């Protein structure tokens, strides 16, 4: 942090230069009048700093060295530095590249970490899109959790209880999952459109209903894995599983392509279609949209159907991909709530959501290695995520920390969900 502030404090000297400016001055200006990219990078820096502090706090060696700080201050710093570098290198090894894979013969695959990142990112992207679409229409869908559970149930039922020819079986299972999610999301939209029931309440409640419904099914024959007492579903039959994209050793399934396709679809929907325009209009100002002749109630229903369908795909990705061998009641993997953070980091734009999903996927892949190889609890990752999103949402705070100036031309107003009254 101190490194970044140094040029700022040196800036007054060349302030009264004539219009022709040197390269250094232009670079400095580019930094001082930071655009969105710089601000995003700086938000990540803040997140990394907070993460580093927590890694130091969690390190027993550093804490014991702090006990004799005045006698040997070097110990504290070296131990602390060691904790930080061990933590971040573990994250890096888990998420991107493990140098061990170069030297081992047939051991860890070189692309293993990247594949893990992609595998973690896929459901997050789909879930982020689900939340983001609803955001753009001014709805706050906390119900991705329940919608994905219903999607997983439906996809699973078709996957293990229906016999169909190979490709058709997968398509049918996917469609069932989409329908399950869309139905559950659409229920919220319908309730809001017909009765005005607030979507925040209904989605929270329907999350629990879906979870308990799954709990019930997991103990019913026909859904439960035969000959066990465990609450685990049957394994999905081979033809209904999402195929591996890069060989059976790497956990990347077809759902990655589905997620990218969905992002393209959402982008087209929001920016190129009439429906998307009216959805955004409803999100921006529902009264104006109504006055302009748009059917706001229908918009609520449609956007919740779309959002639920995307959430249903998350369920498919879990039930037919990562957990095709049988899933339990942790099939949601808290993806519904993580998806909200992803959508926020992606500023509810489809491609931003893809990037945010990849980033969170990388953190999730990294945290596994971090948990195994360091003493730092991997919950640091959640804190880092929160801090990054917080700082991205508050550019003014980042500016004041790094002593930047307000960008010329004003800042972009984010078109996310507003207050309760829309």
């Amino acid at each position, binding site marked *: 942090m101190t490194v970044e502030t140094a040029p700022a404090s040196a800036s007054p000297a060349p302030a009264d230069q004539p219009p022709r400016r040197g390269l250094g001055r232009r670079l400095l200006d580019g930094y001082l009048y930071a655009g969105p990219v710089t601000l995003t990078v700086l938000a990540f820096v803040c997140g990394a700093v907070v993460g580093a502090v927590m890694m130091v706090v969690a390190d027993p060696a550093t804490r014991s060295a702090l006990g004799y700080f005045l006698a040997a201050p070097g110990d504290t710093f070296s131990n602390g530095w060691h904790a930080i570098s061990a933590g971040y290198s573990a994250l890096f090894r888990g998420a991107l590249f493990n140098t061990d894979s170069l030297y081992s013969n047939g051991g860890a695959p070189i692309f293993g970490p990247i594949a893990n990142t992609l595998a973690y990112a896929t459901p997050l992207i789909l879930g982020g899109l689900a939340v983001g679409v609803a955001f753009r229409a001014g709805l706050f869908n906390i119900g991705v959790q329940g919608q994905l559970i219903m999607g997983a149930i439906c996809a699973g039922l078709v996957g293990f209880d229906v016999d169909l020819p190979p490709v058709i079986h997968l398509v049918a299972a996917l469609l069932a999952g989409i329908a399950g999610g869309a139905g559950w999301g659409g229920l919220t939209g319908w309730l809001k459109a017909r009765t005005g029931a607030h979507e925040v309440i209904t989605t929270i409640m329907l999350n629990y209903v879906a979870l308990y419904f799954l709990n019930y099914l997991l103990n019913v024959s026909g859904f439960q894995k035969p000959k066990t007492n465990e609450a685990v579903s049957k394994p999905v039959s081979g033809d209904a599983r999402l195929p591996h994209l890069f060989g059976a050793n790497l956990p990347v399934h077809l759902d990655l392509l589905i997620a990218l396709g969905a992002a393209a679809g959402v982008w087209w929907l929001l920016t190129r279609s009439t429906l998307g325009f009216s959805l955004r209009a409803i999100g921006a100002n529902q009264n104006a949209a109504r006055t302009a002749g748009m059917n706001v109630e229908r918009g609520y229903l449609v956007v919740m159907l779309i959002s639920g369908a995307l959430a249903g795909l998350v369920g498919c990705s879990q039930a037919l991909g990562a957990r095709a061998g049988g899933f339990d009641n942790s099939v949601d993997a808290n993806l519904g709530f993580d998806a909200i953070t992803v959508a926020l980091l992606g500023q509810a734009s489809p491609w931003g959501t893809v990037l945010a999903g990849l980033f969170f996927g990388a953190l999730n892949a990294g945290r596994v290695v971090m948990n195994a190889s360091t003493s730092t609890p991997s919950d640091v990752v959640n804190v880092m995520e929160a801090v990054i999103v917080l700082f991205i949402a508050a550019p003014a705070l980042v500016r004041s920390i790094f002593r930047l100036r307000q960008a010329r031309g004003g800042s972009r107003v984010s078109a996310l969900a507003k207050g*309760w009254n829309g």
Partner: protein
Amino acid sequence: MSTATGTRPPAAGDELVVHHQAAEPLLSTRRRLAGAAGLVVAGLVCILVFGLDANPGDASFQVALAGFGPKIPNVQLPGRPACFVLGALVIVLALLHAARGFSRRSMRWVIATAIACFAVSFLCWAATGTPGNPFTLLGLLQTTIAASSVPLVLGALGGIMCERSGVINVAIEGQLLVGAFMGAMVATMANNVAGTLAAAAAGGVLGALLAVFAVKYAVNQVVLGVVLNVLALGLTNFGYNALLQQNSSGLNNPAVLNPIKVPGLSQIPILGPVLFDQNWLVYLTYALIVAVHVWLFRTRWGLRTRAVGEHPRAADTVGINVARMRYRNVIIGGMIAGIGGAYLTIGYAGAFSGNISSGKGFIALAAVIFGRWSPLGAVGAALLFAFADGLQILLPIAGTPTNIPSAFWSMLPYVATVFAVAGLVGKVQAPAADGEPYVKS
């Protein structure tokens, strides 16, 4: 009416009152019919489902707690006829509503009556399940209050303090969590009072974060709340794994508060043991319910708070400092929710465990909205959720006429809420400026 009535407040029966009611907008015909249809369905469920399925014979309720207070005979209700009568009563209400329409004000009582009828006939049905074995009503109520309601009530009150001043609080869940964490840790290291204070402080800090980002940096408040929840979950899990787990006897071993009988009040026949044989955090909750209500509606501070939440520009024009008002209310709200979090650990469960609040903050948020941003309404909603929560713990154990898988009992509170919100409450109006940052121009 004569002119003399102009100076005295209108009393019941005055023509003035009639005028007031006539001026109040009645519900639209469609909404009225929809509400009536919902009530009819509820009534039919009482008659057809509960009534017909109930075992013949009496539903017997044990009113007094065993070995506590004066002996009260068990209440015997004929199970089936009771369901029929209560269901019919709900249907009569529905027909009245369809025919002439209740005003919004009296609709509250209609809803409350319908819910009560539904709940009692449900209980009659459930209690006929085990003929020789009376249903312990007070046990249920005590579970409701002791196990479930305090975090919900305090979380909802905290949320209302925020939202009435114009800041949306989705971070109740996070405030409960940090409260539970700090409460457990400080109570282990010092004592329970210090633990409660630390929990309030932790909730207040999270509230302060909410306030700074919402008021100063004008961040979207729903976004903010969600992120603060992630932050609180991450921090408490981190602290749990890095600190509490390493030294659980020294850091995560608080003494659970003992119930204290209030002399006199706890001797009241039925309600005494339920309400006044609890630990002091529950009594603090009673006090806070009254305090928040009085605070918001009977003090200058409350008037200003509501003004800032409804129309900040007008409030600013008459010299109220909008930002300061919001900071204070959001921080106080966070402290109240933090105390609710303390109840999760030192008031009930003892040790902290990861994600101990498990969604209670979101239920509290639902109670805020369901209760239409009024303290008493939210408390009622929170109690309803807590009651349903108590039912789903108790009923699978007690046994019912038709055996129902426990998962469906667990769904009950949530399904009931969806029905209540969609069928009876409908569109609610938040404080007008709730969620909108105020930029002074």
